[in-house]
């Protein structure tokens, strides 16, 4: 039945495009009880504030608009919704700037091929501020999805064929690097589907994942921050390396030692270092994974996101096609277990389908992993110390639940995949 729903949704989407307006859909309910999720695509937790921030992308156009949800996780096993607001459809990542009281969301509301400007949303999350939940809009490149905030003042964003750098103190302008490069060996890189990025621990290199071609590495020192409003075009010079052997890279993260990149073909988590990289002048140089990689860890089917819990030496990867989460020990650099979100669940915990975004929180001395399920529109709560699912919320419709239990083919090729721009 779920497949038929998607066919219906796809047809609706086509119809929507034909109509040129989206009034046939109703607005997403902004209720706290019941809480309504719509293709959750990004999450982040604040230990200090004991909050979980959830971005609903509405990628499958279940509603007219998307939403942003704040949950209280002071009882981490059973989060309580606190606030929900409407935001434009089709956001990608969420970047937390606790010091300034903002989260940043790359957003690609516009699906029009001719529209080359999308936006970055800035949402005020300081609950004591009169501007709490205010949403600010800033110009971006075309179809931005991934983001990385350096914790100081630089926000990096990936867009189609572009990488952007903002100074979060003044987001009216951004620097732009052209990722449509030709390597020193004469090979053109297809950069339409760049996905996410991570700044290396050295601070010198920006790893940009690419769903349909090789990953790119940018020299951050040449990717200067903007000094004026509007677009500062940096051309292709900051692109230093193309990583041969990476075929479908997706999520990216880092800790104080390495960059972690999810590769879908074959499915593995690549642990990378830029220790041997030197700046390149002129066209980017092709290098292999052997020059960067310290480990490649096999994971589950159609992996999506990676999140690092450095204090506990763990990485978690959402295996979207398997409905599992891989648990990686960062000391061993090995997968130590997988946790299913669709079976072996506690009583009254609905199954999850297509786990994608994750957030880790340490509350009251306990570690909890929150997993957003893109297709079943719920969140699975995992006790990361016991490595067990403890809860899932909100309740999903009984017929959907039945579908999730039956859905054992673990194959959504041809369906809408989280982050794909093709279906939007």
């Amino acid at each position, binding site marked *: *039945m779920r*497949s*038929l729903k998607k066919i219906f949704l796809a047809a609706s989407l086509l119809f929507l495009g034909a109509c040129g307006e989206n009034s046939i859909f109703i607005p997403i309910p902004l209720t706290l009880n019941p809480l309504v999720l719509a293709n959750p695509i990004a999450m982040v937790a604040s230990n200090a504030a004991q909050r979980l921030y959830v971005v609903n992308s509405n990628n499958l156009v279940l509603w007219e608009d998307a939403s942003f949800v704040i949950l209280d996780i002071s009882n981490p096993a059973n989060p309580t919704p606190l606030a929900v607001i409407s935001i434009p459809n089709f956001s990608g990542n969420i970047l937390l700037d606790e010091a300034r009281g903002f989260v940043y969301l790359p957003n690609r509301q516009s699906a029009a091929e001719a529209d080359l400007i999308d936006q970055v949303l800035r949402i005020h999350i300081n609950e004591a501020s009169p501007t709490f939940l205010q949403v600010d809009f800033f110009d971006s490149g075309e179809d931005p999805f991934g983001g990385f905030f350096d914790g100081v003042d630089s926000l990096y964003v990936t867009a189609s064929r572009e990488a952007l750098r903002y100074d979060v103190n003044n987001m009216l302008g951004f620097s732009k690097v052209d990722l449509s490069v030709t390597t020193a060996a004469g090979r053109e890189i297809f950069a339409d589907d760049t996905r996410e990025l991570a700044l290396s621990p050295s601070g010198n290199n920006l790893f940009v994942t690419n769903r349909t071609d090789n990953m790119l590495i940018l020299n951050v020192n040449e990717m200067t921050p903007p000094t004026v409003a509007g677009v500062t075009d940096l051309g292709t010079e900051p692109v230093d*390396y193309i990583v041969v*052997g990476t075929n479908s890279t997706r999520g990216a993260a880092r800790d104080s*030692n390495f960059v972690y990149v999810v590769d879908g*073909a*074959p*499915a*593995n988590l690549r642990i990378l270092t830029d220790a*041997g*990289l*030197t700046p390149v002048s002129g066209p980017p*140089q092709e*290098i*292999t*994974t*052997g*020059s*960067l*990689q*310290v*480990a*490649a860890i*096999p994971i*589950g089917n159609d992996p999506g996101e990676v999140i690092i819990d450095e204090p506990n030496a763990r990485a978690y990867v959402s295996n979207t096609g*398997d409905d599992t989460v891989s*648990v990686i*020990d960062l*000391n*061993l*650099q*090995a*997968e*130590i*277990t*997988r946790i*299913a979100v669709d*079976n*072996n669940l506690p009583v009254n915990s609905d199954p999850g389908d297509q786990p994608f975004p994750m957030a880790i929180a340490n509350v009251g001395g306990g570690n909890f992993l929150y997993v957003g399920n893109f297709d079943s529109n719920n969140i699975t709560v995992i006790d990361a*110390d*016991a*490595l067990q699912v403890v809860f899932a919320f909100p309740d999903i419709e009984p017929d959907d639940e039945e579908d999730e239990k*039956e859905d054992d083919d673990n194959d959504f090729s041809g369906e809408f995949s989280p982050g794909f721009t093709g279906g939007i």
Partner: protein
Amino acid sequence: MFRSFRRFRIALLALVLAAAASACTGNNEEDNLIFPAIVTIDSDLGRVFVIDNQDNGLNLVDANTDRVILFGKDDESLLNDEAPQLLPGFPSNGVAVSLSGGVSRLFVTGGGATATNQITVLDFDDVNLIRAAAFSPIAVAGANTDALVGLAVDAAVGLLFVSNATTGQVHVYNVNTGAEVADSPVAVGGIPGRMNFDPDSGLLAVSNAANTAVSLIDASDLASGAQTVDVGILTRDAALASNGAGTLLFVSGSQVNQARVFDLDLANLAASTQIFALNPNAPDQPIPDPNFVPGTINFVKAAPLSDGRLAAFFTLSTGDLLELDVSADLATVVPGITLVGAVSGEGLDYLQDANGNATKVYYASPGVGTLTIVNALDNQFIEQIP
């Protein structure tokens, strides 16, 4: 109604596939290896066991013919996702030992819905096929989230070794009874990982992800505890091989992409010397060059060869096999790579002859679902099983 529609679609698809299969009359190759990640060989009985890292997949390959042996009226793998769940949900390591009566016993660790501090024990023979041993699983002392990473056997004495990365201990069990033996566990500290047993020296080499010491445990004297060799890097795997000229320790790095070789002074381990190191290719170096390592060095097995040399075999993340061949006098190390490009390379094991010399190396590639076979003596590619 929708569910019926889905079943109809599946049935229709099955019909189409069956028709296509019948049209391909010249192709008898079955694709049995789905997510192969672990290889363990019972050389005495010529059985190569290939364990998938999910979906209860287990295949048996005949070491004489290098063909997958199929079972049942539908010619299926030894275990698969439709068979009773005998393996851990997500196997991470496995080792086989030959018992009397034509029985191969498999010890498998892994994660999933069950506790991770246990070892699944399976028995296989040609008559009864596969089943859980009477004492399976072996519960290893510790918490139910402990990570059991390394597995090795001393086939001659009948000992099973398992490293608990969480507690920093190596536990030792009797392979026949599953009982923990006297003087077990042996403390090694840090985060012990993969390990290998060398029947010639009687030593177990234990890698460590938390410090640069590789632990050596004398299987005949557990009470003496572990001795260590400082290899200068954190390690992912460690293996020993011996001949008349001495004993070599081969390690693969963790956190760094390196392989190192040490000539051990067993009377004074502190006097052991590094005789070779292989570093990854420099980023700006044109490729390939003779010593080019195209991916990450993963796991290692080491063994003597029939011509007196010693050899170590390392799987690479690119699905190629790295070999370090050491001359019989241990004076020269010659690196080589069998370029296969199987996309990924994980678990490996070698088939040995009656004298314990490696003859063929088998390694698993979960990315493309293949088992690659390489001649241990000349490092030539033999074949690949889909």
